[in-house]
């Protein structure tokens, strides 16, 4: 049993091994690092739940190629992201920028969290109020009833 649990836990540790399929030769390790970060951050337009690095779609391949060429030409990350955004829109970004059309996306979760906390708070308060309404007279009555039960037994 223990072994099974251990094996299961170890499986959780395995990170999805994403890697572009092509082999690129980079002129420096820093460039390779930047390239990898970029293609992990950019989204594939064709298969929308994958990033560029994980997708096998021809378009993703072309865009990886584009990213590679630009990295090798010393384009900055912003320049490369700009290139993609001017062509495909914010859609290519897994991290959407903060602007009016994405406010709901960024702030929504916090509003939900806050709303949940208010509801929780009200429920707790209500339960407390219920407890407090049992007055001494009721207690006495209950005690009396219980004593009667004991006497019968």
């Amino acid at each position: 049993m223990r072994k099974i649990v251990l094996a299961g836990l170890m499986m959780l540790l395995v990170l999805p091994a994403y890697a572009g399929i092509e082999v690129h030769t980079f002129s420096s390790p820093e460039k390779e690092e930047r390239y990898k970060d970029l293609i992990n951050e950019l989204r594939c337009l064709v298969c929308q739940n994958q990033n560029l690095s994980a997708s096998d779609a021809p378009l993703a391949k072309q865009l990886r190629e584009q990213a590679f060429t630009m990295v090798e030409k010393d384009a900055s990350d912003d320049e490369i992201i700009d290139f993609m955004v001017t062509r495909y829109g914010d859609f290519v970004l897994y991290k959407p920028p903060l602007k009016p059309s994405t406010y709901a996306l960024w702030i929504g979760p916090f509003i939900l969290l806050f709303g949940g906390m208010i509801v929780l708070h009200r429920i707790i308060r209500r339960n407390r109020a219920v407890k407090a309404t049992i007055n001494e007279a009721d207690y006495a009555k209950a005690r009396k009833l219980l004593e009667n039960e004991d006497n019968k037994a």
Partner: protein
Amino acid sequence: MSSYKLPIIIFAVLVLLLGIGLNIDPRKVPSPFIDKPAPAFSLPKFEQPDQMISNADFKGKPWMLNVFASWCVTCLQEHPQITQLAQHITLVGLNKEDKTHEARRWLYQHGNPYHTIVVDADGKASIDWGVYAVPETFIIDKKGVVRYKRIGAVTPEDMADTILPLIEKLKAEQG
């Protein structure tokens, strides 16, 4: 009674949000090109590959760019509409990543609606135009600004409701 109200309200809101979510088409990638100058291209002409065609060749009149390929199944769906549109506007076909002989056969088999065809053999120009699916259709006005984009097949409804009125409007505009 009031204890039922809150869950019902929450339920109603969730249903509403789900309904909105289901009606949003996730494949609809809004084009960042609308109302922006069309990306420049310079591509060889299909029938005369030594001749280059660029945006400048169409300046002064509205024109339509239709991305197509012989390997594209959906392109056949919109073929009748595209053929009809060619009577209303200068129609430029962009043959995306195709083999010349296959493209030629396709055009022969189904008919060539295009006034001009340019060849994007490596798909680079398509990337500049933000094309991510074939077919895609753009309408560019007299000043060279993109005014309309359709991803996927142009339906008869699109044509009647949006495209033809837009073409008339663009023709009337000052160049």
